[in-house]
């Protein structure tokens, strides 16, 4: 009678202890990555290679998604705003939505699924095929040589991708609102220019995307490094990267937004 209850309590306790232990291990891993980041900057070509893998190769999905998100915002915004006779404000709506929220958040979600999952799978497979331990045996620190450049490659790529997402999104909004629907181009751009504040909107959006880049890349690399060296282990780690990163992005977005736009 009592035993099943005790068993489930033990199970909960075990999971909590495991979770805390893993969090500590992940923090140690992140700290180690930061401390041993010298190689990533002294041999910047290693980091550039990772910017290419994480950033340049993610451009297609970022550009296409940004364009469609901007176009949808244009359509939805026009539909709502015209009821109040202010359809010219659609440019403002598109730009503010993208720079403050959708640009950093959607780009980070796409980055997590495209580049984050690839990083986890690559590191996990390197571990499973003993490439990481071979490197250690060759007296080359894998944290400095493999993890560091990927980490900084991701952190540098993320804000650039978010900026491209927002810019292409604004262009998508312009295509729908001005070219398709016929709103006056001057009104579209001038209202946008008046409403968007560089410090409040653009800089805050950039800060968000840097934080998201930091979180997604750290999660992706840790999951890969910690993955059990089996096919099942690597696939589980890849899934965890996408799920954990997405939740982290949305959670961090709420916290950052609360701090940034509280008084507005």
């Amino acid at each position, binding site marked *: 009678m009592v035993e099943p209850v005790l068993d489930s309590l033990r199970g909960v306790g075990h999971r909590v202890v495991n979770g805390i232990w893993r969090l500590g291990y992940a923090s140690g891993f992140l700290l180690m990555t930061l401390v041993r980041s010298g190689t990533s900057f002294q041999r910047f070509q290693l980091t550039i290679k990772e910017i290419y893998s994480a950033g340049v190769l993610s451009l297609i999905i970022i550009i296409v998604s940004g364009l469609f998100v901007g176009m949808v915002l244009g359509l939805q915004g026009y539909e709502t705003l015209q009821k109040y006779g202010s359809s010219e404000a659609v440019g403002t709506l598109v730009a503010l939505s993208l720079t403050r929220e959708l640009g950093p958040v959607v780009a980070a979600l796409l980055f997590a699924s495209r580049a984050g999952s690839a990083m986890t799978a690559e590191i996990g*497979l390197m571990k499973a095929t003993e490439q990481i331990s071979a490197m250690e045996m060759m007296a*080359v620190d894998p944290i400095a040589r493999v993890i560091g450049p990927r980490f900084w490659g991701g952190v540098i790529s993320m804000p650039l991708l978010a900026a491209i997402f927002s810019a292409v999104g604004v262009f998508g909004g312009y295509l729908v609102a001005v070219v398709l629907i016929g709103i006056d181009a001057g009104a579209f751009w001038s209202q946008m220019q008046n409403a968007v504040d560089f410090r409040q909107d653009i800089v805050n959006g950039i800060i968000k995307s840097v934080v998201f880049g930091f979180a997604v890349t750290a999660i992706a690399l840790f999951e890969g490094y910690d993955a059990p060296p089996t096919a099942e282990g690597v696939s589980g780690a890849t899934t965890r990267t996408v799920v954990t990163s997405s939740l982290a992005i949305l959670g961090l977005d709420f916290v950052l937004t609360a701090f940034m736009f509280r008084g507005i």
Partner: protein
Amino acid sequence: MENLVESKDVSFTYGFRPVLKGINMTVPRGKVVCIMGLSGCGKTTLLRLIGGALKPRHGEVRVNGRVVNLLKRDALYAMRRKLGMLYQFGALFTDMTALDNVAFQIREHTDLPEDMVEDLALMKLNAVGLRGAHHRMPAELSGGMARRVALARAIALDPTLIMYDEPFTGLDPISLGVISNLLRRLNDTLGATSIVVTHDVQETLKLVDYVYFMADGAIVAQGTPDEIRESKAPFVHQFIWGEVDGPLPFHMPGAPYASDLMLEGTRG
């Protein structure tokens, strides 16, 4: 100093599971020493202890007179620069060509100009007969070729100690002969010392100087290849001649066969 590697009373556990129990072993300089035993008997763990990737629970491992498990990270890395290791499936870096794999350590640990690095890597590839495949990616190499490229990578910095983890597993007879010849030839040409972990009996006894037999985490027999071949120890005899049953039973201990098949009670 006569012995390059010495292991004194080394024990190791994974969690609560004992893997090595009081291993005493010496590897004289210039010799090829083999560690033999069934899969899972702790051979690879012993290699990892020698390379400093794991620390023993008790005892000490000495390489070149220094206790490996007491070395700080920098000293451990300095020791590893004189050590080459061939992994079971090569462990080549899959995003680099064969040449870049071999050149990896040279680039990481020296400031040599790039053309010299490439020449050195080509010379190492030539030593294993694969200079012609220098531009290929690991995915474009057969299992035997990948193992040879990995061997070229392991000797890139002319190590004093070369460790081979199951170098013959999964190779066709020709590749197997090539690798085993290379193993002996490289050891003697480079003036290195080699430790070979394997369970490939016949191939290994032809080329090594001394053999340690491990079973269940302990050394159960040792000797020169001739002594091993003539050994009357039941375990060694079973292993050398590949007998199905002996001190190591064919069947894992388990419940009675009839009860597993649920036949009990049906026999009247």
